[in-house]
Structure formats: structure tokens, C-alpha cells
């Protein structure tokens, strides 16, 4: 893939007496190419203190790239999880009678917060608060009600809900820390709250709770404290459930907080920015680092910084042309975000005119359109014609672009068709052969078309590298068990 031509460039900068196979940066790059972001990041971080000075900057650039892809993936996972979990929890919350779990209201409220639906979230949380007798979880619901109020712009109500909360319980303390951090209340010192809660937990000798991980990873991310965050993650089991409710002898419900994935996304974005900033201090790597900094900033919503970093990259000499294309597509997207729609379209039209039928370029523009949630019918038409006439793996990326664009337009049939065409079917669920971001999109399209087993298969494989997708797997399984309409047949093959 052309993406990796830039990696080769970086490799050339890493003059190394160590055999390539043993070089930690190169090993991390290989894991990155195989989309094994967790392995790549962990191994390179561990090797960092032992690396000679000349390799520190390339290592930081590599880490920045790894974290950026991981952040982007987690952002997509968080969105999917919020939607799937809300669907699942709504059904559980709608049940009546003795076999109903009150916690479905609480976790529905939390999922709705992540979907940006503050009002509906408040309603579910209030329902839990009114009916529950579980003092600790009532407090957690109250804190979440404050977050919902804060998201709705009512910071006064949020402060009222948070005031007077007894944070003696370490988990509750981390919930408060996360709420303060998310609301930007640095004066409440959320980092100190998290540090204290984790220290309390350590003293008690108990394993670190997933609730504390979920909260503190977001706090450390926003505070620019990646080392604390990575230390926390190294001790965490990210597939853990948040609450298990046993109802009678044979019914057990497990609940997950969707915020784990969005906080991981926040954390990795911030870790990426920090690593890329370090790399860009090296003049040799400034151009490369600027390219990724521009991408990280635009994904994190920092339009001005994205524009600045992208301009720095484009001014750098001897950059690979496909990366120049991508940076210019990004410039168009920045223009669009700034309200200059016609300029954006002009940039993209100009690129297409100069390189007609170039699959990567068309894919980049489609993905930008999808990300901006805008209609780009002419680009889509040109792209559809290009994949029809084009052949081979070179066009796989454009099929993926068309698939993501169709998914954004909720044209699910087309999304499945294009994403499937872009998928390496020989290893259809393996992240080493298929970009996990594409697999998440495909799984989402399958979920929405009720092909649940196809969606689940994707996460089954993905969970080997990203165990935190368990929350999506469990919710999907739950919906599938309710939705399927089959007679109970089984045949030998």
C-alpha cells in the first residue's frame, strides 16, 4: 500500500547498526502495518528508554502514527458501541416485571450521553435514581446526570448535582474526576482525584476496576499525562464488564459503559499529538510529523492547528505525491469546516482534474465528504465509474471509500457491496489483512441490515488485539438473540 511508502522514508532516516528484524522502531512499524496498534505501541514504548538518541525522534514519530490510527479506530468503535448499546439497552429497559434489571436504565443513560442525547439520557438516569436502592450506583447516576446537564449547556445544574457528593469510594472519586475533566473544570484537579483513587485502590490490594480505568484514562488523556495513562492501561483488563446483575438462578445481565471507548479515543489522540510534537522538533522529521499532526488536529477538531501543520507539510520538499494529495484533500476539508464550501470543492475538483481516476485520491475525497457529512455526488459518480472499469487491489481502497461514503448516507446495500469488494476475502476478518476501521464500518453496515452473525464474526477476530470491543460483542449478541426469527434447524455438512 502506498501509505507505507512514507514509512520507508522514515526507515531511511533511521540509520541503524542493529539488524532490521531486531530494530524496535522497525518492528513497531511492521506491527503498525498489520494494524496491531496495541502491540506496536506497547513494544515500542517498552524499548524507548534503551534506544539511542538518534532514534528517539523516529520512535516518537512512529508512536504518534500508531496512536493516531488507534485513536481514529477507537472513535469509530465508540460511535458504533454507543448506537448498538443504546439499541440493546432500550430493549432491556422496556421490559417489565420481576425479571427486569434496573441497571438497564443506568447504562442506557450512560450510552445516550455518549450518543449526545442529553435529554433522553437524563430521563433514563432519573428513572434509575428514583427506583434504585443501590446507594453507590445512585451517586454514579447523579454524577452522570450532571454530565448530561453539562453537555446540554446547563453548567449550573451540573455543578449543583456534583456538589456535596461523597467521593470517599475510589470508584465514585474517579467518576467525579471524569465528569470534571470532561466539563473542563481543571480547578477541581481531576488528575489528583484519579491519582488518589488509584492509590486508594492499590492500598486495598484489589485489582484495578474497569470503572476507574474508564474514567482515569480520559482524565489523563485530556490532561496530557500519557505516561500515567499507559501505566494504567498496562494493568487493566479492558474486556471487563462494569456491572453484573444476577436475576434469579438463570438470568445474568452484564453491563458495559460505552465511555470506555470514547475515553480511549481521547487518550490516544492526545498521546498522538504529544508524540508527534516531540518528533517535529527534529528538523529532519518535521515534514513527516507535520503531515500526521495535521491529521490528528483535524480529527481532534482543532481546525486552525490542522491548517498550520498541513501547510508546513506541503511546504516541505520531496514528500511522496500521494501524501501531498492527501494533505491537499485535507486542506479542502479545513476550508469546508471554515464555511468556505465552494473553495473546498474547488480544491478537490482541481485535484481530480489533474489526476483523473486516481483511486487513492478519490477515496480520500470521499472519506473527507463522509467525515464532513456532506453530499459529494459528482465525486461518488466518478468513483463508481472508476471502480467499475478499474481492476485489482489498486482499486480496493476506492471501494472502501465508496463504502464509507454510502454508509454515511445510510445507503446500507451499497455500503455492504462496496466494502465487501474492498475486503480481502481470503482473510476476511483478520486485521492483518484488512484495515480494522473498514471492518468496523462493514460490521456496522451488517448490523444495520440485520446480518448479525457477519457483524459478530468481525469483532470475534478483532477482540484478539482489541479486547475492549467486548462491549460491542455483548450488545450485538443480545440484540441478535432477540431479533432472529429461525425455526431451530441444524444440518450436517
Amino acid at each position, binding site marked *: 500500500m502506498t501509505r507505507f511508502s512514507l514509512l520507508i522514508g522514515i526507515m531511511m532516516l533511521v540509520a541503524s547498526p542493529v539488524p532490521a528484524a531486531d530494530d524496535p522502531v522497525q518492528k513497531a512499524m511492521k506491527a503498525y502495518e498489520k494494524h496491531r496498534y496495541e502491540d506496536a505501541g506497547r513494544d515500542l514504548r517498552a524499548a524507548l528508554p534503551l534506544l539511542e538518541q538518534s532514534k528517539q525522534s523516529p520512535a516518537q514519530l512512529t508512536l504518534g502514527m500508531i496512536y493516531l490510527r488507534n485513536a481514529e479506530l477507537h472513535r469509530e468503535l465508540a460511535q458504533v458501541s454507543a448506537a448498538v448499546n443504546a439499541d440493546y439497552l432500550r430493549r*432491556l429497559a422496556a421490559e*417489565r*416485571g420481576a*425479571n427486569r434489571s434496573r441497571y438497564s436504565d443506568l447504562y442506557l443513560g450512560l450510552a445516550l450521553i455518549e450518543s449526545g442525547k442529553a435529554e433522553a439520557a437524563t430521563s433514563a438516569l432519573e428513572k434509575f435514581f428514583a427506583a434504585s436502592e443501590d446507594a453507590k450506583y445512585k451517586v454514579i447516576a447523579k454524577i452522570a446526570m450532571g454530565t448530561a446537564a453539562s453537555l446540554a449547556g446547563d453548567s449550573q445544574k451540573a455543578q449543583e448535582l456534583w456538589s456535596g457528593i461523597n467521593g470517599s469510594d475510589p470508584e465514585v472519586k474517579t467518576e467525579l474526576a471524569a465528569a470534571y475533566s470532561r466539563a473542563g473544570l481543571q480547578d477541581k484537579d481531576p488528575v489528583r482525584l484519579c491519582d488518589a483513587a488509584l492509590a486508594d485502590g492499590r492500598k486495598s490490594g484489589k485489582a484495578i476496576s474497569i470503572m476507574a480505568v474508564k474514567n482515569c484514562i480520559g482524565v489523563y488523556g485530556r490532561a496530557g499525562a500519557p505516561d500515567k495513562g499507559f501505566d494504567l492501561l498496562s494493568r487493566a483488563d479492558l*474486556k471487563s464488564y462494569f456491572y453484573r446483575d444476577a436475576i*434469579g438462578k*438463570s*438470568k*445474568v*445481565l452484564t453491563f458495559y459503559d460505552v465511555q470506555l471507548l470514547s475515553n480511549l479515543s481521547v487518550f490516544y489522540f492526545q498521546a498522538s499529538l504529544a508524540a508527534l510534537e516531540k518528533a517535529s522538533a527534529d528538523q529532519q522529521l518535521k515534514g513527516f510529523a507535520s503531515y500526521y499532526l495535521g491529521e490528528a488536529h483535524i480529527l481532534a477538531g482543532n481546525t486552525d492547528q490542522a491548517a498550520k501543520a498541513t501547510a508546513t507539510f506541503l511546504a516541505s520538499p520531496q514528500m511522496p505525491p500521494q501524501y501531498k494529495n492527501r494533505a491537499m484533500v485535507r486542506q479542502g476539508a479545513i476550508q469546508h469546516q471554515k464555511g468556505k464550501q465552494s473553495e473546498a470543492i474547488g480544491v478537490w475538483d482541481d485535484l481530480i482534474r489533474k489526476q483523473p481516476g486516481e483511486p487513492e485520491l478519490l477515496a480520500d475525497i470521499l472519506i473527507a465528504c463522509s467525515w464532513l457529512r456532506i453530499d459529494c455526488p459528482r465525486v461518488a459518480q466518478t468513483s463508481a465509474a472508476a471502480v467499475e472499469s478499474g*481492476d*485489482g487491489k489498486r482499486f480496493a481502497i476506492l471501494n472502501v471509500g465508496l463504502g464509507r461514503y454510502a454508509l454515511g448516507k445510510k445507503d446500507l446495500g451499497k455500503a455492504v457491496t462496496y466494502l*465487501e469488494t474492498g475486503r*480481502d*476475502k*481470503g*482473510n*476476511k*476478518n*483478520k486485521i492483518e489483512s484488512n484495515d480494522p476501521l473498514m471492518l468496523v464500518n462493514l460490521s456496522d453496515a451488517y448490523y444495520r*441490515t*440485520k*446480518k*448479525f*452473525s*457477519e457483524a*459478530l*464474526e468481525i469483532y*470475534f*477476530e478483532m*477482540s484478539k488485539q482489541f479486547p475492549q470491543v*467486548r462491549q460491542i*460483542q*455483548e450488545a*450485538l*449478541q*443480545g440484540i*441478535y*438473540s*432477540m*431479533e*432472529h*426469527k*429461525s*425455526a*431451530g*434447524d*441444524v*444440518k*450436517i*455438512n
Partner: protein
Amino acid sequence: MKRMIMMILMAVVVMAGAVHAAPKKDGKPDGGSLSYGEYGRPATLDPITSNEMISLRITELIFNGLVGINEKQELVPELAEKWEASKDGRTFTFFLRKDVTWHPLEGEAPKPFTADDVVFTYKIMMHPKTITPLKVRYEFIDTVEKVDDHTVRFTLKRPVLNALAKFSFKIIPKHGPANPFLTRDDRFVQRPIGTGPYMFKAVTPEREIILAANDNYFKGRPHLSQIAEKPFADQNIMTQALMFNAIDMIVLVNPRDIPEIQGDKRFVLKTYNALSYSFFGYNVRNPLLADKRVRRAFTLAVNRQEMLDSFFSGQGTIISGPFAPGSWAYNLDVQPAAFDAPKAIALLQEAGFTRGADGFMQKDGKKLKLSLKVPIEKESEAVKRVVLAFKNYLKNIGADIKVEFKEWQAWKEDVFLEHDFDIIFASWVFDDSADISSLFHSGEIGPWKNNFGGYANPEVDGLINESKLTLDHEKRRTINRKLHALLAEENPYTFLWNLTNYAAYRDKVRRVAIHPYKFFSFADEWFMEAKDQK
């Protein structure tokens, strides 16, 4: 379930535009012939006695149920144009279409489909002399009665989850079978008569099964004029037949051939049916295999990942229990047992085995020697390698495995009728319900039943019974998770892997939607442009 109890009336109007003996009104051309390849031959062509996928796929073209499932996974009317359910969820009344006829026999006028056929189908299915895996699925039905020629009423013993979906079983004609029971000797099982979009026409000397379009199909004539099923004994040859135009479609592509087909723009690859897995199944009637430590030792002795990587290019997923990884019932907390030959040997020793002078384990003077039966039509290179690898892995821990390849029908008789085997290699395919009750419940031990290994465990029986009785989806899910964990420990099978499943077809076949389990459910809408018709 309360939702079910609250259900007062479910009535669905007949699909608009369905006209007796009329073409479809979708503007697509009629004509053309589709030839598809199967790896193996169907044992029967009726929906009652069949217990394998090749037969199931053909019967989907020939027969209909009272209800069906559309592409959006919604229940839709088929032979019943509407239905009512009682408040308590125990009575279902189906109002039948009046415009349906049975496929005509040569020289005869088509006979009308009536309530008598529905009652007959249920009774023949439940007849003690009928050998069918369906009995266990329909034990919840108490009575069926004809209200009038076009109305039939089912009374259930108890409300069940997804009750309506269960009425998708295929209806056969009262004038079809020779007896009130159905066996594989009946002419009907090889010359079926249905109501579906395609009619049985002939079996060629090459064992090709030819189906012709039913001009009188109640949903409108299917577009393709003919569908032919062509059996192959070798998967590689089947792929070559597709590449060289001898067939138009393969329903299940050999995973190793996927890259070759994927790179060719003449073909479309479509994924479907993730709910299947392969396994080695044990006959626990053999005292050597009755000890669960021995079965566990066999599972630990086999390096499943190595086999999957070597023989299937890694194109699949190792599983830990009785459900496929894409199923809602899979217990994600149960990990596949790691390959551990020393632990396997220790387990055999714990079970009382000692190494003999010949290197094989023995107990009470009896050598640990077992037969492994494999159907010959599954004798592809990959399967051959899997069973030979299994033999070698087990030799390493002191078990002597004799591999026997048997002709498909003879293999099924040995396994399902005579129970004359120690170990088999096979695969199960499930619909979305992930129902394993017929595989592991002790009530399902017997001739032509799916618990071929004679596995019996009161705890497993109890969980299966509880699962069938509940109307709570989440409770059923919890029970299935327990079953998964229990059966992973008990090892009635060595659960192996779920392979990548793709169908491949020539791009001239249009509007191809595939049912994830039954495959041909929407084939009446497939078509070819006039220029592409043979």
C-alpha cells in the same frame, strides 16, 4: 412471554401483486439457466427426512412453508396469507392462500393446496415410523386441526419463543408419499412434489438434478427457466468448473480458492452463513471414550491452530465450544483449550492408561485403538490432511487411530443409524437460533437422530430443557453460555473451527440475495439479462 401473551392479532395481508400463474411484475426478463456446483450429493430431496445442507438447499427451491422470512429478516406470509395468535400464545390459526397448486405430475392437472396438506405434513413428520430430525423441533405442538379447506389451527403445549418462525417448516402434499409415514424408500423423497418456484424435472446419468421454473408459482413465475445442481467429488475441480464456465455458481467455495476467484472480475463472491463449525465427534458408547478425561486429552493433543493455518491457510477461527463465533449464544469468556500434549498424556495416565511396549496407551490389557470415519465425498486434500494430522497428533500421546473413508450414504448409515464408529470428522451448520438441543440432549439418542455419539449428561439435559421452556431472551442466553462452558469441559466433540464461507457466481446472474442458512430463499427473483441467457 408477556409480549406473546399480549399479542392479540397478527394479520398480514397478501403481498401486493401476487397473481396466480402470472409473470413477476418487476420488469426483469425471464429465461436462462443456472447451473450450480455442490461438494457431494443430496441423500434425499424432501424436506422431512433430509438432514444435510445439500438437500436443504434444493428443498428450498421446491417447497414453501406457511410463513417465510424476507431479506430484512422479517416474517412474511407464504402459504398462509394471514394468521392469528391467541392472547396466551398457545393457539395459532393460519388462513391459507387459495391460489396455490402443487407441481403437476406428468399428464395430470395441478392439484390445489389445502388445509389437508398442512395437517398431513405435521402428522407424517410426527409419525413414529418417520425418520426425521424435525420431531424434536416440533414437540411443542399439541394438536393440529383443519377448520375448513383453507384454515388450519395449531395448539401448542406451551407458549414458546419465536413460535411463528417455527411455522416455516415446508409443507408436502397429501398425495405425495405412499404411506402415512415417510422413509427414504418412498419414491417421494427422490421425486418430490412441492408448491415452490421450481419443480423437480429429472436426474441425469451424471447425477445432475434438473429443476424447471414453475409457471404457476403463486408469487409469479421465477425468472430463471432452469436451475441445475451438479455434484462434485473434488472441490478443486468444482472451482475449475466455475473458472472454465462449466457451472455458474458454487454455493460454498473452498477457502483456499477464494483469492483466485476474488481476483477475477467475472465473478462475485458473497459471504453468508457464518454459523457453522467442524469437529471430531466421539462415540461415548465405546467405554474408552466414555471417560471425559480421554476426550479432553484428545482435544489437548490436537494443535488446531497449526492445522487451520497449514490446511486452510488460516482462513477460519478456532472455537471453544458448541456454538459458532458469529452466534448470539457463544460464550466469549470460554477460551479454546491450548495445545498441550504433555497434559494430554497426564490425563490419559490419570484415566488409568499406561504406555505399552509398542508405544501405544493401554488399559486393562486393551489398547487405545479407535476408528475415525470420514465420508469419502469429503475426501478433499484439506480434509485428508486434517484427519491424517489428527491421527499423528493422537499417536504422539499413545492413541492408535485407524482412518476409514466411507461413501457418503454408507458413512451416514454407520454414524446415524448403526452408530458403528469411534470418532467422526464432520461439520454442523445452524440457522440463527443456534439450537444445539438435538445434538447433545439424551432424548435425541437413537436411529437417525443428531446425538449420534450417544452423549448423555443430566446437567446438559436440564439446561436444554430450561432453555426451551423460557420465554426470556436474556435467560436463554445465560443458559446457553452455561451450556457452552459445560460442553467445552466435557468434550463430547473436539470443537475445531469455523471456516470462511463464501458463495461465488458469475456476474451475469443478477439481483442475487442469499438467505444466510437456506441459501435459495430468494432465488425466484434472480435473473439474467437476455444477452446472458444460455
